[in-house]
C-alpha cells in the first residue's frame, strides 16, 4: 500500500504543478493509477465492490482536488467507479441466476431469506438497471425501489450472496477484481485509440476541395485531417495560431509534413477568413453534459464567427472528455489563468508602474485565461469515438458511461471500512 500511496501523491503533485497537460494524457495516467490502486486494494469478504468504490472515491477526491479544471481526471474516476459497479452487478446477476437455478435444490438458505431469493434477485436486477442504465421507459414503468435504496440493495445482494455462496467466495473476489482490472485496461485502450476511431469518420465529413479552419493544436484534429488526406481527399486547411501558446505553428508544421495544403493565419484574421471556410473542426478540453464545450481559449470567438457565416462548427472529442456535470459560469469557474509572462515580460512594464503612490493596487492586470466556454447553441456537431452527435444528445451519451451516484465524487463521506 505505501507504494500506491506514494504513486498517488506523486501524481497529485504532478497535477498540481500542471506537469501533466492535455486531457488525453491526463486521462490515461489517471486510469493507469486507478488500475494499480485497484490491484493493490485489499478487499474485505463482504461488500467488496463497496470497499473498492470507497477506495476509489478517496483517491479520486484527492486527484480531482489537485486540478479541478482538468475534468478528465474526474471523468476517469467516475468511469472507473462505473466499471466497478457494472462488474459487480454482472457478477451478482450471474450469481443470482445461478442461485435461482439452484434455489429449489439448495437447502442452505436461511429462514429469513427463504421467501426472498427470487424477489431479491429481481429487486437487485431492477435496482442495478436503474443505477447503471440510464433511465428508460421500462425502468420508469417497473414499480421498483427508487434510487435511494440502490446502494443498500446492491450491497444486500452482495451480502446475501456472501452468505449463500460461501464456497466460491475467494474465487469470486478474485474474479471481481480481475474483471474490473480487465475493464479498466479496456478503458485505457479506448483512451489511447480514440483518435483512430474518430479519424475513421473523417471521410464522411471532409469533402473534396473543402476549406477547413482550426485553431491551436489538437492531436485529434491532426489525426482527423490526416486520415481524410490519406483517403485521397485533397483539401485546404487554415490554421489559426492559438495565441498565447502558438501551438498552431506546430500543427501547421505537422500538417505540412503530411502533405496537406496549409495556411497559417493570425487569430485576429479568423473573422476575415471564415467567410471562405466550409467547416471549422476543433478539439475540445472537455464536453459538458449540456453539450457546451470547454475549449482552448479563442474558440468561442471562432464559434461565433462560424455561426455568423453559417459554417458548421464541429468538435472532436474522445469519450474520456465527456463530463457528466452541467456547467455553471464555466468561463470563470472552469477556467484557469496562466502566467502573464506569456503575454508581457515582467520587466517590460516595470518602468511605468508606480508602486509608491496610489492605493497599492497595481494599475496593470494581465489576463491570460487558458479556456473558453463554447455554449451548445454554437456547436453544430460532436464527433466522438461512437459517432457523430448533436449537442442536445450529449447528456444521453454521457449517461451511458457514468452512473448517477458518482456524479459528485467529493461530497460523499468516506464510510464503511
Amino acid at each position, binding site marked *: 500500500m505505501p507504494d500506491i500511496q506514494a504513486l498517488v501523491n506523486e501524481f497529485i503533485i504532478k497535477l498540481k504543478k500542471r506537469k501533466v497537460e492535455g486531457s488525453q494524457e491526463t486521462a490515461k495516467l489517471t486510469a493507469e493509477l486507478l488500475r494499480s490502486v485497484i490491484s493493490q486494494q485489499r478487499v474485505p469478504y463482504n461488500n467488496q465492490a463497496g470497499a473498492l468504490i470507497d477506495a476509489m472515491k478517496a483517491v479520486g477526491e484527492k486527484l480531482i482536488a489537485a486540478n479541478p479544471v482538468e475534468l478528465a481526471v474526474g471523468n476517469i474516476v467516475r468511469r472507473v467507479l462505473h466499471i466497478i459497479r457494472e462488474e459487480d452487478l454482472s457478477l451478482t446477476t450471474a450469481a443470482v441466476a445461478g442461485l435461482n437455478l439452484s434455489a429449489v435444490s439448495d437447502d442452505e438458505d436461511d429462514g429469513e431469506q427463504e421467501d426472498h431469493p427470487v424477489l431479491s434477485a429481481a429487486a437487485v436486477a431492477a435496482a442495478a438497471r436503474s443505477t447503471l442504465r440510464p433511465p428508460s421507459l421500462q425502468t420508469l414503468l417497473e414499480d421498483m425501489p427508487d434510487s435511494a435504496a440502490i446502494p443498500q440493495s446492491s450491497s444486500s445482494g452482495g451480502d446475501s450472496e456472501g452468505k449463500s455462496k460461501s464456497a466460491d467466495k475467494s474465487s469470486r473476489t478474485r474474479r471481481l477484481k480481475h474483471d474490473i482490472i480487465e475493464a479498466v485496461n479496456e478503458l485505457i485502450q479506448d483512451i489511447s485509440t480514440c483518435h483512430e476511431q474518430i479519424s475513421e469518420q473523417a471521410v464522411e465529413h471532409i469533402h473534396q476541395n473543402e476549406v477547413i479552419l482550426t485553431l491551436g493544436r489538437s492531436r485529434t484534429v491532426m489525426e482527423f485531417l490526416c486520415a481524410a488526406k490519406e483517403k485521397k481527399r485533397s483539401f485546404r486547411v487554415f490554421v489559426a*495560431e492559438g*495565441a498565447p501558446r502558438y501551438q498552431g505553428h506546430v500543427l501547421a508544421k505537422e500538417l505540412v509534413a503530411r502533405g496537406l495544403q496549409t495556411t497559417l493565419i493570425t487569430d485576429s484574421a479568423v*473573422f476575415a477568413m471564415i467567410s471562405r471556410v466550409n467547416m471549422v473542426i476543433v478539439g475540445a478540453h472537455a464536453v459538458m453534459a449540456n453539450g457546451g464545450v470547454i475549449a482552448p481559449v479563442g474558440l468561442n470567438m471562432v464559434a461565433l464567427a462560424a455561426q455568423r457565416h453559417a459554417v458548421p462548427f464541429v468538435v472532436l472529442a474522445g469519450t474520456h472528455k465527456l463530463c457528466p456535470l452541467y456547467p455553471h459560469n464555466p468561463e*470563470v469557474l472552469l477556467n484557469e489563468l496562466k502566467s502573464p509572462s506569456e503575454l508581457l515580460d515582467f520587466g*517590460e512594464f516595470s518602468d511605468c508602474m508606480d508602486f509608491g503612490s496610489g492605493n497599492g493596487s497595481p494599475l496593470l492586470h494581465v489576463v491570460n485565461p487558458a479556456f473558453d466556454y463554447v455554449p451548445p447553441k454554437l456547436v453544430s456537431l460532436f464527433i466522438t469515438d461512437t459517432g457523430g452527435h448533436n449537442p442536445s444528445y450529449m447528456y444521453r451519451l454521457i449517461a451511458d458511461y457514468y452512473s448517477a451516484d458518482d456524479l459528485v465524487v467529493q461530497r460523499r463521506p468516506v464510510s464503511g471500512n
Partner: protein
Amino acid sequence: MEARRTSRHPIDPKVRQVGFFATGALRDCSQSGPLELSSSPPVSNISPTRNSISPVMIPPPRQSSDTFVLSRPLAVPHLVSPLRPPVVEDRMVVGSFDASEYLLGTSASSRIVDAEFSEDSSVLFRWSGSGKLSSSLPSVGFDLTAMKSNPPALAPAAIKPAAMIEKSGGAVAKIPSELPTSSKPLREKTTKAERRALQESQRAAKAASKAGGNKPSAASGVATPMKEKASKAVKQVPSSVATSEKKGGERNPEKDKKKDIPHPRMQFDDLNRVEKAKRRAVVKQTEARNRVELFRHLPQYEYGTHFPKLESKFFQLDPVHPAVQKVGLQYLAGDIVGGNARCIAMLQAFKEAIKDYSTPPEKTLARDLTAKIGSYVSFLIECRPLSISMGNSIRFLKTRIAKLPLTVSESEAKEELYTDIDCFINDKIVLADKVIVNNAATKIRDGDVLLTYGCSCVVEMTMLYAHELGKQFRVVVIDSHPKFEGKALLRRLVAKGLSCSYTHINAVSYIMHEVTRVFLGAASILSNGTVYSRVGTACVAMVAHAFRVPVLICCEAYKFHERVQLDSICSNELGDPDLISKVAGRADVNYLDNWHEKENLELLNLIYDATPSDYVSIVITDYGMVPPTSVPVIVRDYRQHLWI
C-alpha cells in the same frame, strides 16, 4: 470654393433630413466666425458651447434651420456649471497638443501645432470660401468681400468655431443670431424655388460648357450624387475668370466623372496588368514565395529584398522628391503606422515637394504638378499600399491643384496649396479628432470598463481626455500577434495613471463579461457601413455584439469612402508573412523558422478586416455621433460640400 458652396442649394432639403450634422451651419460659421469672435475675447478660443456635451449628437429636429433662438438655451445648458468651463478649457489645450503628438508619430514636427494657432489668415479665407468668384451668384460675391474686409488677426481663432460647429448643432444656431448684418441670413431666406431656379441655370450652363456633353441626363432634375459632383466641377467653368481656362474646365468633368465611381483596384492576379505595372515600377520587387492562393489579387513582395534596393536608389531617383522618398521608406520600414499619421506625413512631404517645385517651361502648373504628385503617389504605393485616408487626401490635393486658376502666378499657386494642405491637416484631422474626443468622452461614465483593440490614436486621446476630466473607469487593452500595437498603447495609458487590463485577442470572450463599452478605431468606414480596420477589429466587435456590449467606432469623416465591401478578402493589404512565423519576446516559438522551404505552407498576414455594420452601435465622427447607416449620407455630403 464658391462653386462648392452654391451647389449645396439643390440638396439643401436633404441635408436637413439628416439633421444632426450641420452642413449649413458649418457654412454659416465659417463665414461669420470672425464676426462672432470679435465680440468675444479672442483668447478664449473655446466657446462655452464646446463644453455642452450632451446635445451634440441629436439636436432637436430642424434646429439648425429655423429655431435659432429656441435652440440656444437647449444647446448650452446642463454641463456649463460655473466650475466646469475653465477646467475643460485647460484640458482642451492639453488635448490639442497630445493630438498632434500622436498623429505625427515618429515623424513628429511642430508643424501642426503651429498650424492650429498661428495659421495665417489666408487659411481661413481659403476654407471659408475665397477661392473663385462665382459670377452666377452675386450674393456670394458680396459675401466674400465681407469676409476679406475682416482683420486677419482674428483668423486663427476663427478656425476653431468652424470645427466646433461641425460638432454641435447648438453652436450653429447661435451664431447667425448674433449676425444680423452678415450676408448669410439673406442667403438663408432664399426660397426653395429660387434655389431650384439657380440650380437649373447652373446646370444649363454646365451642359453648354460640355459642348454636346456626353450625359444629357445630368442636366435633368433627378441628379444622382455622382452627377451632382460632376456638375459642380463644371460649374467653375463659367465662374472662372478667363476663357483660356475653358480647356482646363473641359478636362475636369470627364475626370471627375471617372473618379465618381471608385476605380476598380489593380488586381494582381491579372498577369497583363501586373507586367505593365512592373515596367513602370521604380524598384524591381521580387514576388513573395508561398503566396496564399486566395489572395493572389493583392500584391505581396519579399520584404527584406525591397528595402535595401530602395535605399540604394535614394540618390539616383530624380523623379521622386527626397521628402516623399523619406516618407515612403518610413512607411516601408513601419516607422509610420496608422491612418492619420501616414496621411499627415504624406501631406507634409507633398508640401515639401511643392515648395521645391517649379513649373517646367511649356507646361502648366496644374497639369504638371498633378502628374508629379501622381508619380509620387505611385512611388508611395510601391512602398506600401495606400490607406484609404491617404487616398482621400490625395484626391483632395489633386482636386485642389486642378482647380487652381491658370491666371495665378506659380508662387501664389504654391502658397495656396500650402494653405490648403495645412488646412486639410488641421481641419480634417487635428480638429476632427478633438471633436471626436469630446463626443466620445460623453459616452464614458464613471465605473465603466472600456475595451479597445490595437492602438487607435483617437481612442487613446478619448481615454486620456476622459481621465483628465476625472472620470473613473478602467481600460481593457486587447492585443494580437504579430504587431502587438496594444503594448505601446498600454504603456502610455499606464504611464498616465489609468487602470488597465491587458490580454490577447483570443481571451476577448473571457474578458468581455466585465466590459461595458467597446471603443474601436477604424482605417475607414465604407458607405455600406462596413468598418474597415485593423485585422481583429471584426472579431472584437463580434464578440461584443454577442455579449450585448455597445461598440463605438471613432473615425474621422475624411476617412470615409464611398466604396462598398462585404468581406475582408476582396480588398485588403498583405503584410510580411515572416512576421507571423516569429513571436516577439518568445524565443520558444520557433517551429516555423524555415517555412519558406515547405512547399505546402503559406503564411497569411492580413492587415485589415471588414466589420459588418450590424456589429456597430454608433460611429463617432467629427459630424457628431451617427449610426453606421448614416455613413453614406455623410460620404456624399462631405464630398460635395467640403472637397470639390
